Every structure is written in structure tokens, then in C-alpha cells.
């Protein structure tokens, strides 16, 4: 494995690991705040127990997310020193604000986790809200830094020099809103379905049914609403990509040839040698419609982009297809849930119904990973779109593959540990939180 591929793999691994923890760290506090609110309002101790059970989970995820985030802030420099040297002053603003937001999150979490029955109950509740809000703000800020890499702004690049730097303009680059929106909704959808799925499994096994049903309801409400909204924000993101990163959009769609009535592709195996797609379903004109709002105007294909500036087409395409397929499935079962709530209450405890949600447990996170693969692999070979190549940014230090193996081992171990701890938390629910 050469050093460049090792560095990219290590970065991908670290981000792929961190993103799960940050999504959960953003969203779970919101769930906690809701159940804590219900507890304060109804005095039903079950809600207190749900909040406490969740907060144990949050503490585990937050600690893991905090250390993997610390790791990332160093890895940016350890793996991509040339990138950070030039990009740091331009796109660093959201990172410094994120540092502030994250700090506040950690302080509020200290109050929330250790402050049960020690503070005024509304103050305690409020600190939970602060954890959630600062978590979401951190997420938005980090994504805004990433969106700058896709849509660089706030500087002039003349003869290899970066001049006229404006960090605020860089932060509010053209892609920040659509990317931040897409990611925030994705975090709610993925976490909502994952949490709901775990509780659905416990309901299915007839364990502490009331406890798990109440928990399920809070989680799925967020997951389902997010899944229903997500296609709208996805449309916004894709239109943005068409405008700013035509290579990425073309790779997502495996769209080799620029022609009128551009086809939307569903599935298919891209053949990059012969520039065609096998076994896909093609819907003529639909891609043109999605990008330009009319069926005829051609969408730029890969033929408009020099070979050396093209991303890996199959990877980007498969990741995109996977993300969309999961998104559609979650949308469907989200609608089904609301339908059951409205018309068919008896479905809610049917085993086929629960099985659907159990099956969906990991799907949201798989979609999140796939989505990040689209945005990151789809930007290649650039680290800063159109300005700096990823290969120019990599550290000169040889032997990065050892570091990659080490990180793989660590993240693998940590993932196992977290799964192990969560399963023990769930196993202890009857003893700790719900004696009935």
C-alpha cells in the first residue's frame, strides 16, 4: 500500500468512525431533552429512567466522539500538512467556532450527567437542551468547513499564492447551507431509526414493553420526519453539485455522455473503459429535469471533464445509489409509521411491523457513510476543488501504512467496545430502570 493511499484510507476511516459518534452526540441529547421534559411534566418516573438510560449511552458516545474528534484535528495536520498550511487560515473560522461550541457542549454535558437532583429541574433540563443545540451547531460548523473544500471561496488564488483571504466569506461559501442542511437532517434520520430499531427489537422480544415503546415513539418521530424531509434537501445538494462540481454529479449518475434529455440512472454497473452502463434502469430526461427544471437541457457528462480531473466513477455511483435506496426505504417506513399512528394503531405491535424497524436499525448510518463517500470520493482528485490536488497535500513522511493499520485496529476495537457496552446497558434495563 503506498503512502498516499494509506493516508487517504486512514482519513476515510477516521472520518467514517467519527461521523457516527458525532451524529449520535448531536441527536441523542434532543431525545433526552424531550423525555426529560415529559418527565418534568407528567412526573412519570418511566420518562426519567428513559432519560437516564439514554444519557449513559450519550456519555459513552460523547467520550468516544470527543477523542476521535481530537484525533481528527491532529490528523488534518499529520496527514495533510500542505493542505492545512494553506487552507487553515482560510477555512479555519468554522473550526475555531466549533471549538467554542464543542467546549460549551462538554460543559453542559458535565452539568447534565452529574447534575441529577442537584440543581433546579428546569436548569438541569436546560443544560440538556444546550448539549443538543451546541452539538447541532458544532456539526453545522464542521460541515461548513468541509463544504469549503467542495466550493472554495473567500480568497484569490493567483500564481500558486493564496491572497485576499476572507474567512467569513469562506465559511459562508455557496455549498455550506445545502451541505449542512443535508447532514443535519441525515443525523436525525440515522440516529432516530437506529435508536427506534433497538427499542423495537426489545418490544419484539417482549422485554419491558412500556419502557421501550415510549422510547421508540420519541426516536421514531424524529427519524421519520427527517427521512420524509431529506429528499428535498438532497435535491438542493444535487443541484448545487451540478453547478459547482459537475464531475461529482456525473460520477454519481455514471453520466458519461453529454446529451439532451439526460437520463436518470437507477442501479447499473458502470463500465469506465467503454464509457457505458450495463444493467441499469434509465429514465430519459429526468436528470435534465432534476438539474435544470426542464427535460431537454443537457447535463454535463464525464466527457466534458479531463480524465485526470475525474473521480472514481464506480465508487461514487454505487455509494450514491446505496444512499438513495436507503433514503427511499426509510422514507417509506416513516410514512408507514405515521399512517399506522393515524389509521391502524393495531399495527404498531404487530411483529411484521416491528421487524421492518428492526431491519432499519443500521440503515441510516450506512446511508450516512455512503453519502460521505459520495461527497469525498466525488471531489477527488482535488482536496480543494479545482485548486489543490489531494496528492499535493499529503505528508512527506514515509511509512503511513503502519499508522493506517494501527488506526484500523484501534477503531475496530473501539467499535467492538461500544457495541459491547451498549448491549450491557440494554441488558441491565430491567434491573436499573424498569422493574415492572
Amino acid at each position, binding site marked *: 500500500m503506498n503512502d498516499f493511499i494509506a493516508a487517504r484510507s486512514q482519513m476515510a476511516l477516521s472520518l467514517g468512525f467519527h461521523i457516527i459518534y458525532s451524529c449520535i452526540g448531536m441527536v441523542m441529547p434532543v431525545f433526552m431533552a424531550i423525555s426529560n421534559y415529559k418527565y418534568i411534566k407528567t412526573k412519570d418516573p418511566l420518562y426519567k429512567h428513559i432519560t437516564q438510560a439514554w444519557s*449513559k449511552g450519550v*456519555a*459513552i458516545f*460523547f*467520550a*468516544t466522539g*470527543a*477523542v*476521535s474528534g*481530537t*484525533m481528527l*484535528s*491532529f490528523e*488534518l*495536520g*499529520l496527514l495533510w*500538512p*500542505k493542505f*492545512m*498550511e*494553506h*487552507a*487553515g*487560515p482560510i477555512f*479555519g*473560522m468554522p*473550526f*475555531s*467556532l466549533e*471549538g*467554542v461550541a464543542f*467546549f*460549551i457542549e*462538554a*460543559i453542559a454535558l*458535565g*452539568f447534565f*450527567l*452529574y*447534575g441529577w437532583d*442537584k*440543581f433546579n429541574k428546569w436548569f438541569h433540563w436546560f443544560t440538556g437542551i444546550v448539549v443538543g443545540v451546541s452539538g447541532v451547531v458544532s456539526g453545522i460548523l464542521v460541515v461548513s468547513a468541509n463544504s469549503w473544500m467542495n466550493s472554495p471561496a473567500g480568497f484569490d488564488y493567483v500564481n500558486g499564492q493564496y491572497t485576499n*483571504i*476572507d*474567512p*467569513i466569506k469562506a465559511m459562508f461559501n455557496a455549498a455550506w447551507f445545502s451541505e449542512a442542511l443535508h447532514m443535519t437532517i441525515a443525523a436525525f434520520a440515522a440516529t432516530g431509526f437506529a435508536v427506534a430499531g433497538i427499542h423495537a427489537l426489545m418490544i419484539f422480544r417482549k422485554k419491558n414493553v412500556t419502557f421501550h415503546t415510549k422510547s421508540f415513539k420519541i426516536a421514531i418521530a424524529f427519524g421519520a420526519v427527517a427521512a420524509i424531509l431529506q429528499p428535498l434537501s438532497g435535491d438542493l445538494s444535487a443541484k448545487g453539485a451540478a453547478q459547482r462540481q459537475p464531475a461529482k454529479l456525473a460520477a454519481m449518475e455514471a453520466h458519461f455522455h453529454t446529451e439532451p434529455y439526460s437520463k436518470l440512472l437507477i442501479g447499473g454497473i458502470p463500465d469506465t473503459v467503454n464509457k457505458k452502463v450495463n444493467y441499469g434502469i434509465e429514465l430519459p430526461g429526468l436528470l435534465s429535469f432534476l438539474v435544470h427544471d426542464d427535460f431537454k437541457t443537457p447535463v454535463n457528462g464525464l466527457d466534458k471533464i479531463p480524465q485526470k480531473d475525474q473521480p472514481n466513477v464506480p465508487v461514487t455511483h454505487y455509494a450514491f445509489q446505496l444512499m438513495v435506496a436507503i433514503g427511499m426505504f426509510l422514507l417509506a417506513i416513516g410514512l408507514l409509521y405515521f399512517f399506522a399512528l393515524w389509521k391502524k394503531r393495531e399495527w404498531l405491535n404487530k411483529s411484521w411491523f416491528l421487524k421492518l424497524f428492526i431491519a432499519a436499525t443500521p440503515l441510516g448510518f450506512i446511508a450516512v457513510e455512503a453519502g460521505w463517500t459520495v461527497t469525498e470520493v466525488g471531489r477527488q482528485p482535488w482536496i480543494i476543488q479545482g485548486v489543490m490536488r489531494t496528492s499535493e497535500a499529503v*505528508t*512527506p*513522511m514515509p*511509512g503511513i501504512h503502519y*499508522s493506517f493499520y494501527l488506526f484500523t485496529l*484501534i477503531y475496530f476495537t*473501539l467499535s467492538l*467496545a461500544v457495541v459491547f*457496552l451498549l448491549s*450491557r*446497558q440494554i*441488558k*441491565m434495563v430491567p434491573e*436499573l430502570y424498569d422493574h415492572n
Partner: protein
Amino acid sequence: MLYVVIIFLFFSILLYFLLGGADFGAGIIELFTSTDNKSRTRRTMYKAIGPIWEANHMWLIIAVVIMFVGFPVIYSDMCTYLHIPLLIMLLGITARGTAFSFRNYDAIKDDKMQDLYNYIFVYSSFITPLFLGIVAGSVISRQIDPGAIDYLSTYIFSWLNWFSVMVGFFTVALCGFLAAIYLIGEAKEQFDVKRFTKKAVIMNAVAVGFGGLVFIAAEHENVHLAHWIFGNPVSLIAVIAASLSLVLLWYLLSKGNTKVIRILAAFQVTMILVSVSYRHFPNIIMVKGGHNLSLLKDHAPMATINDLGWGLLLGSLLILPALGYLFYSFQTKQSRAN
């Protein structure tokens, strides 16, 4: 505004050393506690650092962010030449943070897993400040050599030298000392107060010992440490103040004071940091061959520094009161519970 940013950088590094250091130190103390008393130490420690440890480590994040936004060239050089010790430090931070939360949040507490978490926690508490100290020593050791051509002298000997390693051990001993002093004030029973006092004495002696070795190693590696510290009035006063405060600390401790000694210990570490960094400020990385990296020269464009400064100022308006209240409320609630 550049000075505002530099002051924030200095304080976040200092606070990380003090708060994060005491935090690491708690693990070091646990490492050097006899098996019989380990669980007592653990209980005191959990009460003392449980609610605040995450926040303590945020100072590192703030320092790193200031570095890569405000001083990108310095950050990128550190990351290149000190890749390996930084990496080990990060692994230590990861292992330690996760082991600490896992042992508290594992729903089942009475099996072998607790031993494993403890084992990881105490050793990573030792390794992390060791490498933090090595990094701190390396940046001023003049062993970083951009002109080096082979792997060893570029990426290994930049940090693996007597001076950096001795600074590493000195840092470990200081962390242990800070933690012992802190834990004295947290201990509920006289038995524990005595134990932690003894630890403080040992850590103090070890720190003095390694402090001496740092000077010897500095001479050996041609680092003009003695000249930096004794060659100018500010550093000299800082060193004297540190030594006097140490005497005062032991006097007060013998009188049974447990709170003022914390301030004195923190003051001491601050003075050590001031006395070392004053002479070569604004140079932050001393490179072989003399091209030093300076905070006043090698910074980001002023537009960035201005925005960063404002961001930090506004951010600290939010952070500092909240953090102060966090420390205050858990301190008072703790003592009310006693």
C-alpha cells in the same frame, strides 16, 4: 489582535497543562498506588474529576485550532517532524478518555472488564503526558532538522533525544504532583489525606530530580536552557517565585490547608512555563540551523487573525462563565455533601 490570539494560545496551553495535567496525574497517582488502596483513590478521583474532565481536555482542542488557523506553517511543521510523538500522544488520549468513560458507564461493574479499563486508563495516563512533554521539549530542542535527508534524523531524532525525553518525564512528574495536591483537597478521610500528601512529596521529589536531569540533558544536547532561564531577569524572577511558592506550599500543607496549595501548585507550573518561554518568545519552534518559527512572523494573514481573535473573545464570553459555574457548583455541592 495578534497579541490577543497569542495570549489565548498561551492560556489554552497553560490551562491544558494545569487541568488536563492534573487529570492525567490522577491516573498516574492511581498507577503508583498499592493494590489495596487503588479503589479508594479511584472513588476520590471519580468524584473530583468526573464532571469536569471532558471540559479540561477541550483546552487542547482550542490550542490546536488556534495553531492551525492562526499559525498554519508552525502547525504543519510540527505535524510533519513530530508526527510520531504526536501520534502516540493521540493514541494515549484516545485510550485514556474511552477507558475512563467506559469504566464509569459500563452497566455491569463487577467483572474482569473493570480491570481491563483500569489497566488501560493508568498506563495511558502515564504515556500521554510523557509524549506531550516530549513534543514540548522537541520544539525548543533545535533537533528538528528540515535539511535532514534520511528517515531517522528527520522523523525520529527530531524528538528522540535526551533533552526531549527528560522534559517528557519531568512533565509526567509535574502532572502527578498537581493531581496529588488536587486530590488532597478532595479526600474525605484523614487516611486519604495522608496518602495523597505522601504522593505529593514523592512526585515533588521526582519532579525536582527530573528537572535536574533536564538541565544536564540540555547541556549534553547543546540546548541553552540554563542561559534562557538564568540569563534574564524575568525568567530568573519566575524561577525564584516558583521555588518560594513551593516552600510556602509545604508550609501551608503542614498547617492543614488544602485549598490555597492548589493555587500555589498552579502558580508554580505557570512560572516554570513563563521562565522557559520568555527568553525565546516569540520563537516557538527552534529548528536546527537557526531558522526559527516565530509567532510574530509566521502567522496567518491579518484578516484571519482578526476574525480568529474576535471568535475567541466572543467564545470566551460564553465559555468562561459556564465553566466557572461548572467548577463552582460541583465544588460547593461536594463540600455541602460532606
